[in-house]
C-alpha cells in the first residue's frame, strides 16, 4: 500500500531534517552552519510533499503536520540511521554522506514510478539530493584525507554508523520500490569516495533493523520527538 511507503520517505527526511536543524547556531564554521540549515530546509520541504501526499491518500482527515507532530515514536517509519544523534561534526557528515548516497539512488529510481504524483515529488527532490551528495562527498573526502585528528574521527564515524547502512536495503511490500536493488550502486559509489578519503569500509554486513518497520527504534528517536513535538502538542491551536 503506497501510504506506508510514502510515510517512510517522509519520515526519513523529517527526522534527518530535524537532526540537522539541531546544528543551527552551533556548527564549527559559519558556512557549515548555513549549509546544514539549508539542507535541513530542503529535507523539511520534501517532507511536506511526501507526508502531504500520504495524508491525502490516507483520506482520514490528517495533514502533513498532524503526521509529523501527533504520532509517537512507534508510529514513525524512518531508518535507524537518520535518528542517530549528531555527536561531532564528523559523525553528522558521515551520516549525511551515507544517507545522501542511498537517497539520491532511491529518488532517481522513483522518478520513473508509475504513480505520477510520486514521480513528481522524486523529480523535485532529486535535484536537491544531487547537490547534497556532492557536498557530503566533498566533506567526507576533505576530512578523511585531512589531518590525523580529522581522519581518526571520520574513520570512527564510519565504524559507528556502518551497522545502520544495511537497513536502507532491507525491503518489503510497503516500500515504493525494491530497495534491495540499490545496494550495488551504493557500494560502488561509497567505495570510490572512501578510497579518496583514505577511509576503510568495515568488513561486515551486520545490520540493525527495526526503524522502517517501526518494530524497534533506538532510544534517541523519542528524545528527539519530545523536542520537536512539544509546542504543537502543548498548544494545539498555535499558528505561525
Amino acid at each position, binding site marked *: 500500500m503506497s501510504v506506508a511507503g510514502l510515510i517512510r520517505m517522509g519520515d526519513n527526511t523529517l527526522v534527518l531534517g530535524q537532526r540537522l536543524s539541531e546544528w543551527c547556531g552551533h556548527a564549527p564554521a559559519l558556512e*557549515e552552519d548555513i549549509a546544514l540549515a539549508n539542507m535541513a530546509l530542503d529535507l523539511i520541504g520534501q517532507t511536506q510533499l511526501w507526508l502531504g501526499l500520504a495524508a491525502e491518500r490516507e483520506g482520514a482527515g490528517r495533514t502533513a503536520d498532524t503526521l509529523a507532530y501527533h504520532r509517537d515514536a512507534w508510529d514513525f517509519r524512518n531508518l535507524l540511521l537518520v535518528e542517530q544523534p549528531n555527536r561531532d561534526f564528523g559523525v553528522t557528515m558521515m551520516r549525511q554522506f551515507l544517507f545522501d548516497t542511498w537517497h539520491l539512488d532511491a529518488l532517481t529510481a522513483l522518478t520513473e514510478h508509475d504513480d*505520477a504524483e510520486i514521480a513528481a515529488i522524486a*523529480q*523535485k527532490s532529486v535535484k536537491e539530493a544531487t547537490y547534497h551528495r556532492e*557536498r557530503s562527498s566533498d566533506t567526507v573526502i576533505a576530512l578523511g584525507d585531512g589531518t590525523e585528528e580529522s581522519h581518526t574521527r571520520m574513520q570512527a564515524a564510519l565504524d559507528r554508523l556502518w551497522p545502520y547502512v544495511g537497513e536502507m536495503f532491507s525491503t518489503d511490500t510497503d516500500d515504493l520500490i525494491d530497495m534491495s536493488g540499490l545496494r550495488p550502486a551504493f557500494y560502488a559509489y561509497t567505495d570510490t569516495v572512501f578510497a579518496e578519503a583514505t577511509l576503510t569500509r568495515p568488513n561486515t554486513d551486520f545490520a540493525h533493523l527495526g526503524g522502517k518497520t517501526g518494530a524497534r527504534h533506538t532510544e534517541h528517536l523519542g528524545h528527539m520527538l519530545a523536542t520537536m513535538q512539544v509546542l504543537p502538542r502543548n498548544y494545539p491551536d498555535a499558528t505561525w
Partner: protein
Amino acid sequence: MTTASVQDVWTWLADVPDPEIPAISLVDLGVIRDVKWQGDVLEVTVTPTYSGCPATSIINFEIEAALRARGIENLSLKRQIAPPWTTDWMTDTGKAKLERYGIAPPQAAGGPKRCPLCQSHQVEKISQFGSTPCKAQWRCTNCLEPFDYFKCI
C-alpha cells in the same frame, strides 16, 4: 468585475518583485508557469524553486495582493511541482538584473563566469550554500569581495 487579458496579467506579474531578491520579478525567476481564465476564475500556476524555500508562501501572498489590487476578484493559485523548477526558466533580463544587483547568475558550468562586482574571472568557491536555498557563496580573488552565486539547477 475585471476581465483582464492574460497578457495584462503577465505584465502585472512582471512587476511583482521576488520577496528574497527584490531586484528580479517573479516572472524573471520563472516560477509563474501559467496564467489562464477558467470561466470567471483567474488561475495562476506557480512552481516552488526549492521544496522547502520559505519564500514560497510569501510569493503566493504577493501574487494575490498584486492581482487583487488590479481588480481581480476570483483568483485561484495552483501549485505545480512537475516538471521541477530549473534555472533555465530564468529570463535573460532576470539574469542581467541579478548581476547588476551583485549576484552572479547561474551558469551551466556549475560556477559563476565572473565576479559581479569587478568582472574578474579569478573566483573561488567558499561554500556550496548561501543565505537562501538558491544561492552559494563565492569570493573574488582579484577584488577580494565575497559574493552570492545563484546555483544552477
